[in-house]
């Protein structure tokens, strides 16, 4: 039966940025579908909380504090995952952040802003993928799911490192898809629209009233999508970027609510 193919029992997923927001929601959804979880992020208390919630679903989970911009720490995290579970089937490169140099005129973006922005959002995915890849190849397949962004497909005023890194991540994913297609490894991106993980962010985004659907995304809406992309149901999809944004990117430059009527 087709929905049985969504089950991930016996599989192991590494989720970076799993301490809060989308990463935590994705880790929980993968666990609900049957996968054991390696939760990685910098802040131990946050991934411990994620791990507790995963364990409450009946799955196993280890919380591994990791700075994904440091390849030594990434390699150690993957070794720990293998030591604990013996395999990795799913890698979710979700760690990232938009704050480095955000809103600053390009003239005043420092070398450090640029480096941090690119490292956090792009280099991190390279480090994690490089470390996990040998295990996927050995097991004859696996799934790589990268969290990109609508900002990887469109530009934004005074948004430099994030747009460049996320666009880079999308095209990095395409090359992964092509290179390892015959190894039964599928690599895809999720490009979420605006998903606040604090009340403050929801207020800053005015509740999403400027989004065509009229609301912001809810973290739990990412769950089914990540499960679909981690499951055999999506085995023929690779190199794709799936935008989940309430219609935001279908829009052009015409403000929401403007509805022209021009008779012939």
């Amino acid at each position, binding site marked *: *039966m*087709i*929905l049985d*193919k*969504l*089950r991930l029992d016996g599989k192991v997923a590494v989720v970076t940025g799993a301490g809060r927001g989308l990463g935590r929601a994705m880790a929980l*959804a993968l666990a*609900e*579908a049957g996968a054991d979880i390696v939760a990685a992020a910098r802040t131990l208390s946050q991934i411990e909380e994620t791990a507790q919630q995963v364990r409450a679903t009946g799955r196993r989970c280890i919380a591994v504090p990791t700075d994904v911009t440091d390849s030594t720490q990434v390699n150690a995290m993957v070794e720990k995952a293998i030591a604990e579970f013996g395999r990795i089937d799913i890698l979710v490169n979700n760690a990232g952040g938009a704050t480095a140099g955000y809103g600053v005129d390009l003239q005043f973006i420092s070398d450090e802003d640029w480096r941090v922005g690119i490292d956090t959002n792009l280099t991190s995915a390279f480090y994690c993928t490089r470390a996990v890849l040998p295990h996927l190849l050995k097991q004859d397949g696996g799934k790589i799911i990268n969290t990109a962004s609508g900002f990887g497909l469109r530009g934004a005023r005074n948004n430099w490192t994030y747009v460049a890194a996320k666009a880079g991540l999308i095209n990095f994913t*395409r*090359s992964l*898809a*092509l290179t390892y*297609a*015959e190894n039964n490894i599928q690599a895809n991106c999720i490009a979420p*629209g605006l998903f606040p993980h604090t009340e403050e962010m929801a207020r800053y985004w005015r509740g999403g009233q400027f989004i*065509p*659907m*009229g609301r912001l*995304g*809810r973290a739990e*809406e990412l*769950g*089914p*999508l990540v*499960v*679909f992309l981690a*499951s055999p*149901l*999506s*085995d*023929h*999809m*690779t*190199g*794709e970027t*799936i*935008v*989940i*944004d*309430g*219609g935001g*990117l*279908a*829009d052009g430059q015409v403000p*929401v609510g403007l*509805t022209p009527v021009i008779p012939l």
Partner: protein
Amino acid sequence: MVTKRFELSGKAALVLGGATALGRAIGVALAEAGADVALTFCAVNRQEEVAVNSAVNEVWALGRKGFAAAIDVTDAAQVEAIVRRAADELGRLDILVNNPDLPFAKPLAETTLDEWQRVLTANLSAVFFACRAAAAVMLAQGKGRVINATSILGERGVINSTAYCAAKAGVVNFTRALALEWAQTGVTVNGIGVGFLEDVPGIGQDESLKAALEKYLPLRRLGRSPEMAGLVVYLASDAAEFITGQTIFVEGGALAHV
């Protein structure tokens, strides 16, 4: 439970162009996920009739309701009638899958106005007819899913296929624009873009074309219709409520190429 959110129990679907290998795979998958399913086929094609009836039998064998109806998708009145009939016979209409497909390949200089219009009407206007008809049902119930099947030829060009490429690209932007128009109605509008399928007549049987494609495709093989169905089930379900205006391609990585 996250997998529960993909279930389609209690929902009803209409698949336009339901007799092709892709249409049948989609119809049966929707039924497997719990939906009742109506499928349309082309009246003049005896092979389509046999194929669609076996798909309807599979729908019933899964414990779901279903029927097949012969229509001409280029006739707006017939498309409107089948949308109404599906809603009446199945008791509701939650999912509309537009999968009309009229393949056509010819140099542009030799393409007649009649051919151009037939290709545009069957591949693009049919989607307009069906969506306009479904609006009456779906906007009134404040919920619905429209899924327009298109092709990688709606995203990339290919020689001797200008009319077909234009029509399929038209579906992609039709999908975006209608998604916006209906964004606050509870009805989402998305597309699936299919790659080269081995069970499409004309590709699967043409050995030299097949061999050339196998060299080009990242997976070194053509796609199979059932491999498209999972995405349709996801987009048709409550799990995909926040996705609209997107055409998602299932093509084994073909579009990732330069």
